[in-house]
């Protein structure tokens, strides 16, 4: 990247005609670090004769993500001291929202990388691709977060989405994974095309794709014929609707969530949603703020159906990943509440929601990853029966995370729901707030169903053997073959990873948290190992993620100020 820039500089110097934009590197450094880290890992592993060890790849990824996280915090400092500003000829904006997305995405990559490590070790997959794709798609989300131009949003969206198509199809051994990738790709490409056509129409109507310039144009001119602009806006809305899975455009979500490898699903739910929504917020709440009377009613309708359908359909899902997919649709409805308010308070509430949701959803899917077992297949509700007896730590974490998703007080989930509802109510959308609260009450049912299942005693012997019979009969030879191929890969691996993870986290508090995590991880490993021979020992990477997300969810649910004030300051969207 910088090579090209330098070449351009050289060209400018020789010709003297090219006026290069000034580049403030701090504003794009997190993105560069993420992409650069990915490229380094890729190059390194391709130079080696044997595949690079997964532990190395994950450690490097964690390191890269941490670096990006720290850089984002530096950006935060800069924003607080000198306010929001744009860079590189107005293509990049550095404001509270973009910093928040930077922090969100780098933490999401960090957390997912550790889950991915456990996943790859368990499945016996080698190679750095999963982590590289995580890094680059994370960079795409960051680009979206800091985009100040429709075309940059589009490119960031594509970087994010194309990487996610590949990640969804990553698990070559499960047919569902490939289908998930394909389905995601077809509908993603379709929505991208719609989105780009929307950009074209907006460009035609306003003469620019730069967000503040669009806003300035709308502020200065009264459009007598705004049909073109509204058509473009509608197409943008549909495009965003696909990306963040709003209800009429959500059809891909359950299948893709179910089929994708579980750690990827968590990442998708967190980052794709966050990236999509930040651009959504920026375009609608900032650039087209003046058109709010035009776009608020359709978004009201979308929010209504999204909230209700997401909550209701989730009730009769038998697969936990599908259930969480519908729950994510419901959550998207809540975020939409903040957007529909079209106030800075609403934007702040939506950003806060995205932030805490991404942490808890990654933690939830980390638990699902562990419970899914080798082959990533045990996702039926029955797999959760008696989890508390088998793995108390896991069940406890799942309880906390699901209750947080349900919005129980003293978790971040409650604060998030409360904030969006307050924002909606203060913006006059009281009816929508009522719908949202009703949907939250409905949604509590299905979260609770899983939680209770965890605490039910396992079925008596004849009962338990029935659902697991296919595995027991169909897979003994395969299981033996697996053991033969890699003698006891999982247990030493988990111990080995315990060392690099705390290093990667670096900063003081995070280090102690990770230490706690590892310590907690070891204890049940010993306990659970002897009790039930079919249960795998808890993988350290996933457990670290789970513990971190639980701690975050509970700690900042009680000690609300830090994250809430972060989000409250994160509304400095650049306005004309």
């Amino acid at each position, binding site marked *: *990247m910088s090579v*090209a820039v330098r070449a351009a500089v050289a060209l400018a110097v020789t010709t003297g005609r090219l006026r290069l934009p000034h580049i403030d590197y701090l504003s794009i450094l997190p993105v560069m670090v993420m992409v650069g880290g990915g490229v380094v890992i890729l190059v390194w592993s391709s130079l080696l004769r044997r595949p690079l060890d997964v532990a190395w790849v994950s450690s490097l990824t964690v390191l890269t993500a941490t670096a990006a996280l720290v850089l984002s915090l530096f950006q935060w400092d800069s924003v607080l001291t000198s306010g929001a500003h744009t860079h590189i000829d107005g293509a990049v904006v550095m404001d509270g929202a973009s910093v928040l997305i930077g922090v969100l995405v780098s933490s999401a990559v960090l957390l997912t990388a550790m889950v991915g490590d456990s996943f790859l070790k368990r499945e016996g997959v080698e190679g750095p691709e999963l982590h590289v794709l995580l890094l*680059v798609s994370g960079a795409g989300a960051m680009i979206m977060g800091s985009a100040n131009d429709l075309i940059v949003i589009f490119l960031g969206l594509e970087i994010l989405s194309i990487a996610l198509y590949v990640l969804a199809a990553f698990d070559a051994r499960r047919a569902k994974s490939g289908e998930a990738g394909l389905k995601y790709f077809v509908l993603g490409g379709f929505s991208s095309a719609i989105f780009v056509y929307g950009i074209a129409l907006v460009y035609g109507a306003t*003469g620019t794709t730069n967000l503040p310039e669009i806003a300035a144009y709308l502020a200065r001119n009264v459009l007598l014929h705004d049909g*073109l602009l509204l058509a473009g806006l509608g197409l943008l809305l549909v495009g965003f609707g696909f990306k963040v899975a709003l209800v009429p455009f959500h059809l891909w979500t359950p299948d893709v969530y179910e089929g994708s490898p579980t750690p990827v699903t968590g990442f998708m739910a967190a980052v794709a949603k966050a990236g999509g929504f930040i651009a959504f917020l920026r375009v609608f709440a900032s650039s087209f703020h003046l058109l709010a009377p035009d776009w608020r009613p359709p978004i009201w309708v979308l929010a209504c159906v999204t909230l209700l359908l997401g909550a209701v359909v989730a009730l009769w899902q038998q697969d936990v990943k599908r259930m969480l997919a519908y729950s994510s649709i419901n959550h998207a409805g809540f975020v939409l509440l903040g957007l529909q308010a079209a106030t800075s308070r609403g934007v702040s509430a939506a950003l806060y929601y995205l932030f805490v949701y991404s942490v808890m959803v990654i933690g939830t899917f980390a638990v699902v990853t562990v419970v899914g077992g080798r082959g990533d297949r045990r996702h039926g509700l029955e797999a959760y029966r008696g989890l508390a007896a088998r793995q108390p730590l896991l069940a406890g974490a799942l309880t906390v995370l699901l209750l947080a998703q349900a919005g129980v007080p003293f978790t971040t989930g409650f604060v998030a729901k409360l904030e969006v509802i307050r924002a909606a109510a203060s913006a006059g959308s009281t009816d929508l707030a009522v719908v949202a609260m009703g949907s939250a009450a409905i949604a509590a049912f299905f979260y609770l169903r899983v939680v209770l299942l965890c605490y039910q005693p396992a079925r008596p012997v004849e009962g338990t053997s029935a659902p697991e019979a296919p595995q027991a009969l169909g897979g003994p030879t395969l299981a033996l073959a697996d053991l033969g191929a890699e003698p006891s890969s999982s247990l030493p691996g988990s111990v080995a990873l315990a060392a690099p993870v705390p290093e990667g986290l670096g900063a003081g508090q995070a280090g102690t948290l990770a230490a706690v995590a590892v310590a907690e991880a070891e204890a049940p490993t010993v306990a659970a190992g002897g009790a039930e021979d079919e249960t795998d020992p808890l993988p350290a990477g996933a457990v670290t993620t789970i513990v971190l997300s639980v701690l975050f969810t509970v700690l900042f649910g009680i000690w609300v100020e830090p994250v809430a004030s972060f989000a409250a300051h994160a509304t400095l969207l650049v306005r004309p």
Partner: protein
Amino acid sequence: MGALLGVTRVDFAVFWVCAVIVVAGGVGVVLSRQPVYAALSLVLTMFGIAVLFVAQDANFLAAVQVIVYAGAIVVLFLFVIMFLGVDRREDLRVEPLRSQRVLAPVLVAMALAVVLLLGATAHWAVGAPEVVGPARGQPGGDVAALGRAVFTDYLWPFEITAGLLIIAVVGAVVLARRPPRPEPDDTPEQPEELTQPAGILPPSPESREESEPSEEEVVS
């Protein structure tokens, strides 16, 4: 009639000819039963659009359009079609999602009508020139203008396309990689694979190619 449509002038004639080509190509893509025909129709559309680009003084883009689309993308499509041997016909009449098939054209037609109506009545109100960036028609032709824009106003988007290309390469590598082990056990979920031993253990490409025709016969 001819005067009304403006065919008396060359550029009008070019537009109409290209429009017919483009639409015909589009119809071919949407309706043809064999992917090969669809791909060839796609080429037709691409060419038509390239000519329309030329007609609007975007010469460089026209060249890129032909090179990238016709030269790379469609060829890739054709390559995959040939590689997979999926030139078997799709029966358009058998439609499991009937509601969707009925609904989709209606919706699309409505959307189209709305857009065209907008065009007819609202005169495609376009943005004021005050906002626009560097004008076209600068010294050095549109190549130079494009180059200048890419390195000044659009520097950041241009740079991040690098990320896009990295993704494409890594993605292709990941997807092309052979599964590390034979699929463990999706078999209980997909009984149809039980009848296809070849599907569980991917053989070498040669044996795969050989086994294909027989399977096609079985399917059809």
